[in-house]
């Protein structure tokens, strides 16, 4: 192989998707004068935060060679549950605790249920979470009779609209979640077990790891983070929408895979997922700024996903 190709391969394999992301930023900076402004970039981070937080949970699940299709429906139902709690007849601070607590608790329960079916009853994650996906979506419509829940306490909308040192609160929450997830995966025993279970389930069990507990936990993490996203989304639209988060599962899986996590489990990082999420978010934003029609956008996003995964193949030298 010629030397320049070898060098190219080395750079690609070390920085991978990060290079593509930087090229993307540079490209849009040149193409649109409105792109590289502080306001716009903060805006992108805000728009990306909802799916990126879910993508963190999805990364845990996919690292164990599983999948969680229920995340989009969870976003809707957790939003509905939270807004329902907010309208209960209790004093304001308590209503917040109750509403948000109920939303998160629901996420934990849904994840626990998925984990239970995957571990105890040995049903493939795809089927379990596909069923939960339709169940929660249907439940959200049943609970709201198909109508959004409005008339929420003042200030709920401020969560998603609020800023701390100029940075949108959802962006800060997203960064915190990524930081915590990165720490967990790289520094703790549980993180190591997630990789071991995904790398070789049976070998992990025979090495004395409680594999069922690890699997249960990753689905709970995915559930609770989806619920958190659902609450943030409800705050952003200041209502509980039964059709919120439609097709999010696919956007999220795309972000995780573009970020280099293997669907076969055992390989991947949340750092990759962050870049994968931002890459897709920036792409949508950039195309919007350039007034590209939304139908065309879908095509472009699909093509970029294919190219990114192709790059990953190249990186592994196939």
């Amino acid at each position, binding site marked *: 192989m010629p030397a320049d190709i070898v060098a190219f391969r080395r750079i690609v394999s070390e920085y991978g998707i990060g290079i593509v992301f930087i090229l993307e930023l540079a490209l849009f900076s040149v193409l649109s004068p409105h792109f590289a402004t502080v306001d716009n970039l903060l805006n992108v981070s805000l728009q990306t935060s909802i799916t990126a937080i879910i993508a963190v949970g999805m990364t845990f699940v996919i690292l164990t060679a599983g999948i969680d299709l229920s995340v989009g429906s969870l976003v809707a139902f957790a939003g509905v549950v939270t807004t329902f709690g907010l309208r209960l007849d209790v004093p304001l601070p308590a209503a917040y605790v109750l509403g948000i607590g109920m939303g998160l608790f629901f996420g934990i329960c849904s994840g626990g249920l998925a984990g239970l079916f995957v571990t105890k009853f040995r049903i493939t994650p795809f089927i379990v979470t596909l069923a939960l996906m339709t169940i929660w979506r249907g439940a959200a419509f049943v609970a709201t009779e198909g109508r959004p829940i409005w008339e929420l306490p003042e200030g709920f909308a401020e969560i998603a609209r609020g800023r701390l040192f100029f940075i949108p609160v959802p962006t800060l929450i997203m960064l915190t979640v990524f930081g915590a997830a990165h720490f967990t995966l790289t520094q703790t*025993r549980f993180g190591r077990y997630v*990789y071991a279970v995904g790398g070789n389930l*049976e*070998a992990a069990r*025979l*090495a*004395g*790891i409680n594999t069922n507990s690890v699997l249960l936990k990753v689905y709970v993490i995915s559930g609770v983070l989806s619920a958190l996203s659902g609450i943030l989304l409800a705050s952003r639209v200041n209502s509980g929408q039964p059709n919120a988060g439609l097709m999010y599962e696919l956007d999220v899986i795309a972000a995780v895979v573009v970020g280099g996590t293997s669907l076969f489990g*055992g*390989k991947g990082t949340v750092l990759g997922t962050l870049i994968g999420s931002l890459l897709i978010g920036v792409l949508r934003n950039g195309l919007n700024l350039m007034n590209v029609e939304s139908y065309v956008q879908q095509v472009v996003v699909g093509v970029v996903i294919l190219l990114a995964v192709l790059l990953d193949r190249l990186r592994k030298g196939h």
Partner: protein
Amino acid sequence: MSDLLHMRGIVKEYPGVRALDSVDFDLHAGEVHCLVGENGAGKSTLMKILAGAVKKDAGSILLEQKPAEIQSPIDAQRLGIGIIYQDFKLVDELTVSENVLLGQEPQRGRFLRLLDKKRERERVREVLKQLGEDVDTDIRVGQLSAAKRQIVEIAKALSRSVRILVLDEPSAALTDHELRNLFSIIRLLRSESVGIIYISHRLDEVFDIGDRVTVLRDGAHVYTAPVRDVDRKSLIRHMVGRELDQEYPKAVMERGSEILRLEGISTDFLEEISFSVFRGELFGIAGLVGAGRSTLAHTLFGAGSHHRGRMLLDGAEFSPKSPQEAIQAGVGLLTEDRNRYGLILPMNVRENISLSNLREVVRGLVIDRAKERSVAESYSNQLRVKAPSVESAVETLSGGNRQKVILARWLFTQSRLLIFDEPTAGIDVGAKREIYLLINELVQKGVGVIILSSELPELLGMCDRIAVLCEGRLTGILTRTEATQEAILALATQFPVEAHAG
């Protein structure tokens, strides 16, 4: 005997390695030519080139003196070359006849080309009859034993009228009886002028079935001779490239205290197994495939199904319900298939060593990398693991070194009883001895060791006592002086009479 195949100056390079360095190989019609060599010697690569699965970089192939261009498996098939890989290439969900004629299904009808299932079945029955085999043609291949699947593979090759048949490690999954059956099929094919290339790790088989033998080492051809002109020792010398001192370095040790006692252990499969294992001895467990060796190992390790009966570890009640509990009690299992049940292949050496005892290297919540690294380094030095560093991926290690990594894992958990299921399966002759020496060291240090093996010479060469299983029952325990190949086989085939009546 006419010359069937000539491979001349075959070269194959992979990035960084020369897998085959100008290798010559030939085959006559109606002979069994054995191909031996250590892992990585190039046997499989050479055969894959012949089968069109891998492209050669240089060299030529002559079939009956005519140059043959083999670019793909389809070319190889057309030229009458059949290869049976160790992990069979059959479709489990299809029936025997569908598998045998896969890709050459008979069809009927002029406009609608429908599958002619009747003719398919007839053709397959004919081939099976030719092999003297009685296999149900309508059964799904997934339900067949390894031996029957192999017969389906051979039938598949025969239905494509092969002139050359390559068998890659055909004995790996077979019992002795099934192997003898395979040999009679091979002899039958030989008498019909098929040229057979037989790859095996087990040298006994070379002497049983081979007419000629070729040794490859490090991608080069080192030796070819008629089997009757060579002996085992010189064959090993050619394979390893140096004189091996002793295949089985048995150390004599003093028997110590009882470490493990089984009293009437039964599971769904095992029946009333009782024995004791002592420190300072190597305890072997023999038995045919399906006799219950691995079931017993899994029960001892808490990874099997529910058991009845009593187990004592150093005199204390021991009844593990999970591998976790067994490990906490100080038991380690080195599984038969290391890649599937032992190692986490995407992880590196350090992570594989520390996996079962991470609590020893965490500080608060956080894994202490430096400590983890120094632990991994100290065990991998102690066990002489050959890897560039403990940060190397285990995927890049040889079979022997992979086994050492698992052993390091169990030493780090301070195991007092180690169970080796097929300790040297897939490990080179030279590296086997290393493993035996390490096992000796463990026994000397007072660790209890149990070896389960299907290789009788290994058990006979290393163990002080050998327990023999047959269909889930313990049929006898032989001391080193009593144990012979015949005595073990007699116990291993002591089937209960009533089980086979009617």
